């Protein structure tokens, strides 16, 4: 085997080739850290001994806590057991959410920012109406009941409208808008009436209605002249006629008397009642005169119908008249 010729390799400061720089020796784990501690303890002990040797007043033995050596053995065994347990159960078993520790920093920063904000504006808390939570439960139950109703019945009210209702309603609404405008712009009542008209109107109407009550009466048209006047006329006619006749007999030879008789036709219309009564008083008997006098006292108007008591029956009135006639 060709020997590795190292003469041509570059020689470092220590005159060793790189291939020879490998340390062939091995040491225990953490050897140097433990050695360092031991060396430092050794130095401390020697310093302490030297101090005690130099100063006889301080020449005392190193002290340990009371009962230290008594518990030392237990402490060492507890330490050994702890180490064994750690060797068996390397993990605690607790887990955290994914990315927990990565986000932990942000969470802490957010909390700190919130705390800072609160220090500036402590009243940022939202406000709610008074008794909100007391009423909230009731509201929630009501909402649940409403939803149950909707699920059962649905949104249909059951009401219907007439055919073409909405078309007509639209037209009506448009009309009302126009009417409102006219009412506002033009007003409503433009006609006027004379002063005091309505008071006068009432009086006029009442005069034509209440003031003109046609009572239910029996109206029988009596002859123009009372019955007794008929008798009187007949009696006078007879008397005068008789006288005229006898006068005529006597006047045949007297033309003037004839003319007087011819013109002596009695016109009873022109003779007053009193005159007729006076005449009949001379020719009539007492009883007839009394009866005739009663009639003579009635005021009589040719234009009026004599009104009788409405309680008298028509038949009775006719009988009376027939009797009288």
């Amino acid at each position: 085997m060709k020997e590795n010729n190292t003469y041509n390799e570059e020689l470092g400061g220590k005159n060793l080739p790189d291939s020879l720089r490998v340390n062939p020796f091995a040491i225990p784990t953490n050897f140097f850290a433990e050695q360092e501690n031991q060396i430092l303890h050794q130095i401390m002990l020697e310093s302490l001994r030297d101090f005690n040797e130099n100063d006889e007043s301080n020449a005392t033995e190193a002290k340990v806590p009371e009962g230290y050596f008594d518990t030392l053995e237990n402490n060492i065994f507890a330490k050994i057991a702890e180490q064994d347990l750690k060797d068996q159960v390397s993990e605690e078993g607790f887990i955290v959410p994914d990315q927990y520790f990565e986000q932990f920093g942000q969470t802490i920063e957010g909390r700190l920012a919130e705390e800072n904000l609160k220090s500036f504006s402590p009243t940022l808390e939202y406000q709610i109406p008074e008794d909100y939570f007391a009423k909230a439960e009731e509201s929630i139950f009501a909402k649940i009941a409403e939803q149950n109703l909707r699920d059962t019945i649905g949104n249909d009210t059951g009401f219907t409208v007439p055919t073409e209702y909405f078309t007509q309603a639209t037209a009506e609404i448009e009309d009302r808008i126009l009417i409102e405008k006219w009412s506002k712009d033009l007003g409503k009542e433009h006609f006027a009436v004379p002063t005091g008209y309505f008071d006068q109107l009432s009086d006029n109407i009442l005069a034509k209605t209440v003031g003109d009550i046609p009572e239910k009466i029996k109206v029988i048209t009596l002859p123009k002249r009372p019955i007794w006047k008929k008798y009187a006329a007949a009696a006078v006619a007879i008397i005068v006629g008789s006288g005229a006749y006898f006068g005529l007999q006597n006047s045949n030879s007297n033309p003037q008397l004839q003319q007087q008789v011819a013109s002596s036709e009695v016109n009873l219309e022109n003779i007053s009642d009193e005159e007729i009564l006076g005449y009949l008083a001379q020719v009539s008997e007492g009883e007839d005169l009394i009866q005739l006098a009663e009639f003579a006292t009635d005021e009589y108007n040719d234009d009026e119908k004599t009104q009788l008591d409405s309680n008298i029956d028509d038949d009775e009135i006719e009988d009376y008249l027939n009797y009288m006639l």
Partner: protein
Amino acid sequence: MEDAQIISMFADESSREAAFKQLLKKYQQKIYWHVRRMVIDHDDADDVTQDIFVKVWRNLDKFREDSQLYTWLYRIATNECITFLNKKKQKNNVSLDDDNSSYLSETLADGSYFNGDKAQMKLQQALLTLPEKQRLVFNMKYFEDLKYDEISSILGTSVGALKASYHLAVKKIEHFFNSQD
């Protein structure tokens, strides 16, 4: 006084006059204005109103109370208005199928007792272009604020027909206004 009380009092002869006075007090002006808006002239309205209440006096004892009293009164008043206007047509040799608009327009223009301005006169002129029954419907709805049910009872026309009539009347009036501008 309630209508029922008026009717009851009228039925009793001893209180008939008092009942009629109460009825006059309650309805006189309403009936007058109902008539006036139809016949336009105050004197004509006066005559017709008096005739109406004379008829009421004569016939109230026969009122069967199958409708409201005011409905019955309005019905009489409406019929008297139409009768009067028909007589006017005959007098003016106007066909019964035509309206009285020219006569009434002249009455409106010439007559006294109108205190409206130009725009209000225009409204009255617009109303006179409507057929009589349509004008009646409009008057009762617009001026007297009667409900369709009430107008239906008075005129004997269905509510639907009344609504259509009123709508047409409003449209015609609007067209009249626009055409006059």
